[in-house]
């Protein structure tokens, strides 16, 4: 039960239902602001650079990258895991909070799910390119063919990963889409433009909001929420098994699955915070994304940051406690004090120490500070993957195979391209899709506001 007296109303400004529709649809009907055009231009330039780099990779080959015999996985896998991590929070956010019936999710879940879909698309680019001959990517599908039939290896984490990522993309996209159907109907019935009525009407699938439709809609969202919660946990566990089932020091640890899942939710929640602060500021949605919402995200971030700190400490402790010299070398001489100490301590400071500033209410309430910390967390999470992947591969068992790694412009280009794709995707979402779930906001309006007990409402009871 949501106690408004204790936690404050979730929607400020004494709104009525009609105002909610008008407010949330407003950005779709207004011309795009200047900052949007500038940001969209920059995103597209970045995307263009990425396309050039992808062209170079595909036409010349993986030789254009900085990877070598020892460091066979590098920049691309770092970015793959990073994007997947960010892509995790959208679904984690909306589904865990749906299952836990947390009403404050309603202002945020739509944007979080949009972020998920775009981030997973960005992530999928990297393993596809890493295959080398991307036009043969279909070999990974289990299908009968002329080569055997040669079926895939169901024991391989790389195959699990392919299945998990594809399923995750399909499921989060459909979960997101069906949540939008009632809102598309609202746009269809309110717009005066013929084109918008036709387009949104098509995507609304004939939704009218009868009790028959709502009953199944609610049943569908709880069924999908319930099972996709399992998926959120399993997908990133599977990503972690890509590393954990190998025998590379620093990868071969049982803490990896929970550590990866928590890390993914950490970076994703930080990205949700970044996005919600942008939405709140740029579209003046402070009545919907209240400081109480951001406060709640900040508190979750403190908690996850503590788990991350514990995970880092556990890894180091077990490396020492196991007495395994390769593990001790990797954690104490390679990562913490060796060539990669800057990256290691960046990770520790950004992920385990800086977020602790959220213990102070002043910082939780200060949007600029919260925005900066959310960015720092995402940088820290990038360095976490850098640490895991590069340090373990660059110096493994044989000193004769030790090498250093640095990315080429092509690798950096692909990453910049995915940043551009993410930016462009999110900006298109801002423009064409209602940024918050209108029908869900209406559903929580009365139960979580002070005017629950106003005269109009109880006059007939």
């Amino acid at each position: 039960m949501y106690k408004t007296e204790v936690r404050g109303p979730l929607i400020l400004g004494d709104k009525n239902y009609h105002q909610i529709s008008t407010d949330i649809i407003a950005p779709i009907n207004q011309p795009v602001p200047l900052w949007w055009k500038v940001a969209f231009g920059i995103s597209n330039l970045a995307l263009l650079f990425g396309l050039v780099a992808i062209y170079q990779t595909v036409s010349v080959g993986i030789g254009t990258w900085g990877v070598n015999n020892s460091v066979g996985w590098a920049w691309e896998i770092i970015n793959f895991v990073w994007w997947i991590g960010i892509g995790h929070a959208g679904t984690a956010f909306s589904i865990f909070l749906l299952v836990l019936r947390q009403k404050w999710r309603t202002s945020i879940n739509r944007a979080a799910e949009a972020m998920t879909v775009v981030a997973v698309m960005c992530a999928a680019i990297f393993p596809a390119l890493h295959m080398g001959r991307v036009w043969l990517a279909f070999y990974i599908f289990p299908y009968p063919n002329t080569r055997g039939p040669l079926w895939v290896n169901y024991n391989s984490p790389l195959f699990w990963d392919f299945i998990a990522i594809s399923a995750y993309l399909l499921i989060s996209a459909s979960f997101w889409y069906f949540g939008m159907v009632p809102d598309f109907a609202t746009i269809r019935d309110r717009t005066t433009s013929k084109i918008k009525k036709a387009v949104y009407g098509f995507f609304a699938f004939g939704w009218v909001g009868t009790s028959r439709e709502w009953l199944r809609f609610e049943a569908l969202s709880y069924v999908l929420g319930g099972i996709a919660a399992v998926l959120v946990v399993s997908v990133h566990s599977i990503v972690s098994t890509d590393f954990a089932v190998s025998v590379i020091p620093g990868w071969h640890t049982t803490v990896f699955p929970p550590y990866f899942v928590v890390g993914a939710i950490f970076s994703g929640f930080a990205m949700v915070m970044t996005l919600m602060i942008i939405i709140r500021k740029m579209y003046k949605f402070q009545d919907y994304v209240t400081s109480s919402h951001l406060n709640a995200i900040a508190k979750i971030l403190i908690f996850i940051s503590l788990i991350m700190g514990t995970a880092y400490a556990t890894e180091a402790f077990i490396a020492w406690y196991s007495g395994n010299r390769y593990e001790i070398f990797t954690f104490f001489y390679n990562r913490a004090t060796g060539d990669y100490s800057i990256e290691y301590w960046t990770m520790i400071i950004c992920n385990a120490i800086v977020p602790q500033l959220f213990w102070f209410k002043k910082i939780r309430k200060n949007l600029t500070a919260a925005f900066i910390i959310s960015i720092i967390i995402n940088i820290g999470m990038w360095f976490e993957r850098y640490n895991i992947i590069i340090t373990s591969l660059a110096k493994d068992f044989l000193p004769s195979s030790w090498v250093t790694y640095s990315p080429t412009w092509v690798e950096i280009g692909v990453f910049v391209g995915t940043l551009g794709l993410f930016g462009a995707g999110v900006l298109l979402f801002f423009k064409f899709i209602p940024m918050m779930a209108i029908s869900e906001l209406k559903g929580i309006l009365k139960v979580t506001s002070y005017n629950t007990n106003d005269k109009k409402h109880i006059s007939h009871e």
Partner: protein
Amino acid sequence: MNNHFVVGVFDEEAQLMAAVNETQKQGFQIQEIYSPYPVYEAIEAMGKKTRFTFAAFLFGLFGALGVLAFMYYTAVIDWPINYGGKPTNAFPSFLVVTIVITILVVTIASLFTFSARAKIYPGKAYVLPDPRSTDDKFVMVFDKSANDSEYQRLAELLKAEGAVEVYEKNIEPEN
């Protein structure tokens, strides 16, 4: 088919529910209720139930057994390959793919079930008595022919329960 209806429009959920209870008590048959967000009492009052979760369970069972059977057929019967001496029927590591594909099957099948049962699909010719019901109004619709003689009484009843508008309308499917 008769498509002459009585439409009652309400501003608030509480008024709608009072009207739903009162009209049902007096024996009027509610054709349908339209609301901008799910009103659980209204769904309940309409006597609508769904076996959606049971269907989802069946999809899951079918998905899990199907994918396990598929993996067993391909890895054990059709083309067994020795991967480092592991058994071809490596059941525990098949479970990972089973879980993910089961979730995928449940999701896709649930979406199609939803589409079929709630009748939500692209290009549908929909019936929307009052377009404000997707925005801020709660709308009750009654079949006019069934209540013709009592129309006056129904209209007064709806008004008394707080309806902001009561009107008659011929409703044709849109688009």
